[in-house]
């Protein structure tokens, strides 16, 4: 029997290179996963996190091929000689995309799938399926088709399927990156209970650290400051790692020089409660005076006999970045599609870049609006990135120089690269560059940060801010509160088929129970970002003195 602190998995000098790749995915990884631990693996896209996780159940190298060095021993078995199928009873693996891992047409059968493959006796199987359904709180979903479930529900079914195998180790590859905040919270709550109540060993990789960092007891940073990974308790590793991916309260603690930066909002309240700040920044209403670029007047949209939007009006002006937020099904994407002329409206009118969509039809809008769908790679079909831009220029009859546009988005050196070979962040920027050819006055973005790492989000915020300065109006559907606080000029909150709030980020996000930033939860008022607080601190001598004394106390 495995007891706490016995190793469940050991990686010894593991290196891996994908077939036909010229560089290693990762090199010389050596660490141990102890029984009952909750390990969080972090690092930028392309740092080898997913590949490393796939070593733990033998998908690397058995499924992916390539050059594999060193050895991985999981549950006493060497993955060189034991493949993923054989390890599936010991290692449960949950993938990033909830749509591409469920096989059967009933939730109940999905949970039993692995047990059937392993020839588990029927009585035992029924008991384990019931236990998994109950534990994950999805008993009510047992007869449903997986295709009808939300993303969060699907991930919980995938976890239940893994749990039913009674694995020694549960490995999850960015399990919440495709989910909305509520779905993500459900999944992380489940992981926490599995680890704390059942003692299940968990290894998870994720970009959004605010929810997971406080729950992890081991933090593994890939591609650390010296190109060497860091491993240890979060409190030890956090002060040494790059600040960009850290949750805002932790980043603030680092910026203030605290040797033990807080990992949670609660800890931040405790450690920073005495921080003397000046008056909070004023929550001025939005006051853009630019020309109206998108004019939505009292529209009603019905989908599947349900009213999704009712009497919604929105006027987007040049130079505005309007973030459209709201729970799933609140009509965010429908509103974006209506502005783009892709969604017919039952009542009201939409005028976009001067085109009355009711009168002239969406055809008149063709090529006059930049639109990046959720999957940015949907746009690419050429073998070279530069050809994608040339294609847009040709179909729009634009005289823009594609090389100049690529340079502007920091992609000049990738002009000859295949668009699908680019990293996630590069792809998103490439999509932006592709649709911004011809300088459209309106840019529409549908959840652009889904699955994006923290470094790429910073880059995206920077590019969007530049576009705003150039007078481009931007409408962005997103769940990412921190991104909105960082770069939006206006927030439109949808609910109950209508607009429930419309104003500047400080007006809408301040004091909100669900749509606000970590910093606002700590400091209240209209403080939203780390930069707000740092700017405030620098203006008050008392605060600086206090920080010095806290540093000394640390």
């Amino acid at each position, binding site marked *: 029997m495995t007891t706490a602190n016995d190793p469940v998995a050991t990686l010894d000098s593991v290196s891996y290179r994908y077939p036909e790749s010229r560089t290693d995915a990762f090199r010389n990884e050596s660490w141990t996963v102890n029984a009952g631990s909750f390990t969080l693996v972090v690092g930028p896209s392309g740092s080898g996190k997913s590949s490393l996780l796939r070593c733990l*159940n033998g*998908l690397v190298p*058995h*499924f992916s091929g390539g050059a594999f060095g060193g050895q991985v021993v999981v549950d006493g078995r060497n993955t060189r000689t034991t*493949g*993923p*199928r*054989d390890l*599936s*009873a010991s*290692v449960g*693996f949950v*993938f990033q*995309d909830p749509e*591409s*891992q*469920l*096989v*059967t*047409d*009933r939730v*109940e*059968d999905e949970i039993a*799938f692995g047990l*059937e*493959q*392993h*020839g588990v*006796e*029927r009585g035992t*199987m029924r008991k384990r*399926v019931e236990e998994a359904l109950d534990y994950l709180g999805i008993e009510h979903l047992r007869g449903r*088709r*997986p*295709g*009808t479930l939300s993303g969060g529900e699907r991930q919980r079914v995938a976890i239940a*399927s893994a749990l039913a*195998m009674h694995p020694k180790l549960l490995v999850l590859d960015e399990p919440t990156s495709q989910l909305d905040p509520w779905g993500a919270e459900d999944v992380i709550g489940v992981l926490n209970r599995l680890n704390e109540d059942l003692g299940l060993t968990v290894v998870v990789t994720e970009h959004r650290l605010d929810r997971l960092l406080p729950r992890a007891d081991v933090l593994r940073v890939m591609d650390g400051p010296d190109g060497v990974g860091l491993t240890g308790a979060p409190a030890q590793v956090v002060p040494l790692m790059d600040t960009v991916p850290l949750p805002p309260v932790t980043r603030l603690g680092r910026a203030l020089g605290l040797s033990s930066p807080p990992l949670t909002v609660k800890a931040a309240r405790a450690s920073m409660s005495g921080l003397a700040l000046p008056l909070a920044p004023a929550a001025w209403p939005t006051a853009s005076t630019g020309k109206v670029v998108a004019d939505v007047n009292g529209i009603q949209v019905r989908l599947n006999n349900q009213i999704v939007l009712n009497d919604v009006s929105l006027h987007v002006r040049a130079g505005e970045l309007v973030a459209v937020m709201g729970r799933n099904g609140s009509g965010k994407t429908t509103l974006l*599609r209506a502005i*783009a002329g*892709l969604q017919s409206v039952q009542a009201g009118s939409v005028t976009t870049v001067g085109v009355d969509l009711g009168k002239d039809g*969406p055809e008149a*809008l*063709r*090529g006059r609006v930049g*639109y990046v*769908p*959720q*999957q940015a*790679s*949907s*746009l*690419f*079909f050429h073998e070279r990135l530069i050809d994608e831009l040339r*294609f*847009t220029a040709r*179909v*729009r009859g634009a005289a823009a120089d594609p090389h100049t546009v690529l340079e502007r988005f920091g992609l000049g050196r990738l002009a000859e690269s295949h668009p*699908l070979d680019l990293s996630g962040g590069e792809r998103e920027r490439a999509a932006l560059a592709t649709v911004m050819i011809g300088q459209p006055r309106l840019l*529409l973005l549908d959840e652009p940060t889904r699955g994006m790492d923290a470094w790429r989000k910073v880059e995206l915020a920077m590019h969007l801010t530049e576009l705003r300065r150039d007078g481009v109006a931007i409408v962005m559907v997103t769940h990412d509160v921190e991104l909105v606080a960082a770069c939006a000029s206006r927030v439109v909150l949808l609910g109950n088929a209508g607009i429930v709030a419309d104003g500047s980020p400080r007006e809408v996000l301040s004091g909100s129970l669900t749509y606000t930033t970590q910093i606002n939860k700590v400091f209240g008022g209209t403080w939203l970002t780390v930069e707000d607080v740092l700017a405030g601190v620098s203006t008050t001598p008392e605060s600086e003195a206090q920080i010095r004394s806290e540093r000394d106390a640390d």
Partner: protein
Amino acid sequence: MGADRLDSRAWLCWGLAAMTPLLLGRNPWVLGEVLLIVAIVRAVWRPVMSEQGMGWFLRIAATFVVVGVIFNVLTVHSGDRVIAELPEGWPIVGGILTANALVYGVLGGIALFTLVLTGLTIATLVSWTDLFHVLPRRLAPIAVTGSVAWAFLPQTAVAWREIREAQTMRGHRFRGARDFVPIVVPLLAGGLDRSLAMAEALEARGFGVSERMGRQPRSRSLDWTFAVGVILGLGGLAVAAYCLAVGMMFWAILAGVIGGAALAVIVRFTPAPGSSRTRYRLLAWRSADSLVSVTALLAVAVVILRNGTSPASLAYTTYPELTWPSVDLPMLLVLGILLAPAVVYRPAATS
């Protein structure tokens, strides 16, 4: 007798029975009746059907029907009812345009559309998981493949729409076949990504696990037997179908018996790898399943018999003269038993 769901095998029998007359001839009475029956069964079972994202299949089928009719009218310059004439000098389309070609094109279109509609109905109502359990273990991967493919279809339909919209907003116009490259390439790339992800997930979940807990080691000779048996079986059934279509009843029966026997033998006597697999859910075969299966197989038998003894019952051509099709009333009445699924349906009691 009433049921809120039918066994997947019963649905397969019904689908086979509905498709058989469509494959054997173009008699308008038969086509019309089968189309009506399929539409009624779909309407009755709609509450339990999940066809989200599947409408595009029917739109594609309808497009093919329209294109097929136009193609037939413009390229088949034969028949006794001339409705128009194009200059002889025009390549391919030049010559007389006839009502014969028009009617034949429409009948072909109805047959194609009904086949798609029947296939869609079956694919929606069949439980791939149940099939996975009831198929012989050697053939179980087919059910998993079907399940995965069926799960991918709505995603593919959604991806098609999203890519088309994104390319349209970019400024692209869709005028000819080549203009669809900007949709097809990202669609294939995305599909490949999803396929790899699904294959990884199947591996990671132990699909085809090699831990066979004391079972016999895999035998190469059994693998060869299985492969030869499958080729012989499927080949025999294909030959049987061809012979049936051209009216060679004796050879059709002979090839069918050989093919069926070959499949039965390999399924029965070649154990599958991973044969330690167990079943979570036991499937109940109910009287409604028996009724639907028996009536379907009876309909197939009658259709095949009538095709041999009275070809005009199913066959119909509009060339060289456009005449009224013959009516085989007894056979049409027998085909009516394909309404059995609609008769046995009872909504599930709500708790």
